[in-house]
């Protein structure tokens, strides 16, 4: 193909280079058959199946779902949004970890510095905090939605129980994060909250002692809750989420319409 001058135009060259890259071995090895990025992709029913089947998304979604499941008004995307918020919280949380030290005066100073010295520090901290509250809300609303659809009925009984565990873990994640700014709000909200746990019979004092790292909240508690918040609880919740999503698929996908 040549233009009037007998030379190959820039657009043509770019297109040829694009085709060349997309048919290279490296590119083909990355994008599996059915990927819209693959050379020669066409929008066919077969490729629509392959997009999911040959993709890591196959862990989450089947190739096809019942038509009613696609309706936004049925699920309101609450479960998916909870998962999305978890990922968003992980990303913003990793950003915050670069600037935070869980020791007594330093924690508070780091949060202060975050809002003044760090580019986008305040924005990311805001997103982390509001996202966390939103996640508690979406998880809770997701539970209510599942109840009102009767979606916990056989064979989905156990997945409901896993969901309750996820709700509790979400609350714990939020609660452990609440202490980390180490300001008056954090200290006393957590004091009030964890005092409730100490009323538990027999093991109450021991559980409280282990969680707080003493008889009352001290700077040592900060380190303990930091590790719980950024490592232990996310680790546990990811395991339960994996089971939860797997069971959604194995129990027959999303529940039927009302």
């Amino acid at each position: 193909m040549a233009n009037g001058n007998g030379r190959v135009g820039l657009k043509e060259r770019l297109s040829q280079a694009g085709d060349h890259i997309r048919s290279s071995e490296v590119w083909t090895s990355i994008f599996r058959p059915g990927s819209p990025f693959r050379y020669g992709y066409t929008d066919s029913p077969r490729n629509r199946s392959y997009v999911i089947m040959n993709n890591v998304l196959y862990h989450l979604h089947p190739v096809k779902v019942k038509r009613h499941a696609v309706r936004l008004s049925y699920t309101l995307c609450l479960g998916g949004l909870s998962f999305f918020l978890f990922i968003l919280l992980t990303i913003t949380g990793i950003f915050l970890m670069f600037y935070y030290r869980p020791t007594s005066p330093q924690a508070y100073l780091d949060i202060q510095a975050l809002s003044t010295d760090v580019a986008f520090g305040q924005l990311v901290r805001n997103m982390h905090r509001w996202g966390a509250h939103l996640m508690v809300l979406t998880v809770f609303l997701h539970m209510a939605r599942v109840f009102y659809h009767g979606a916990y009925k056989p064979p989905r009984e156990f997945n409901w129980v896993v969901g309750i565990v996820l709700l509790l873990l979400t609350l714990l994640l939020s609660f452990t994060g609440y202490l980390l700014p180490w300001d008056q709000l954090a200290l006393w909200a957590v004091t009030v909250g964890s005092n409730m746990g100490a009323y538990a019979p027999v093991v109450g004092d021991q559980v409280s002692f282990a969680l707080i790292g003493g008889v009352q909240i001290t700077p040592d508690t900060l380190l303990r809750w930091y590790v719980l918040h950024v490592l232990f609880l996310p680790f546990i919740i990811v395991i339960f989420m994996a089971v939860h999503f797997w069971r959604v698929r194995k129990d027959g996908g999303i529940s039927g319409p009302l």
Partner: protein
Amino acid sequence: MAGLPEHLLRRSAEARAKAEGRDVEEILAEMKGEAPAPEAAAPAPVAPAQPAATPAATAPAPASATGGVRDIATESAATGVPEALLQRAMEGRARKEGKPVPTMAAAPAATAAPVAAAPAPAAAAPPAIPDGVTTQRLLTVVKAGAIQQVKSSPADKVNVWPHLLAIEFVALMVVMAGLIIFSVFVDAPLLEFANFNEQPNPSKAPWYFLGLQELLSYFDPQVAGVIIPTFGVIGLAMIPYVDKNPAVRPSDRKLAIMIFSFFLFGAAILTTYGSFFRGPGFNFSFPWVDGIFFDF
């Protein structure tokens, strides 16, 4: 047709009845060998493994219609089913129908219909099976569903890509945009440095625990802080095992919805009350009079 399960026979009869426009029961009886097949509608059942036996295969069926005694030997040779099995099937059927148990036919040719008599000798010699060829015969038919339940009922389905993924993507973008915009304009709270000697008044737990903190002002800590939350969580987890009603339509599960909604609204009211209507000393206060004592 000896040895075939009843439901398979019936299905086959139904299919044939539909094709030929005849009565199902009539065909079924005919297949079982209880009624003579009409001449016009008696296609020879094909036994692919034994083409030589084909003409004879039709014979035993009408033959048995003549009386309780059947030509077991001929039938066995024609169908390849051992005589003992045929005999047992015949006895079983007779018992089921309340007839006297027939004995093994002693004189096959005498009782058999003339049509059957002629081709029978041809069927007596089964086709030779070459050496080294293993033949199989049908022992029983196991219904599907024992190991894996096959749900083949057609459902109205759509491709996840692009239908569902597009919706999910838009939902994620909307929520992320909303969160970013909200975070640009509203800052997360950061009060003074933590001070162990100065407890703010009132001290409130995070908002999702304020319902419990509200309960603490009515009940003993053992009740409000331990028993109610413990039973709440256990009760929540046990819902699917307690609610045995299989219905999902809201109109068919009014009680369950009523109970759940009661607790849901109860928790919402307690949380709202604890968040906005509790002032200094955790005493009742109107937020529009004394201000809001609440931080996210």
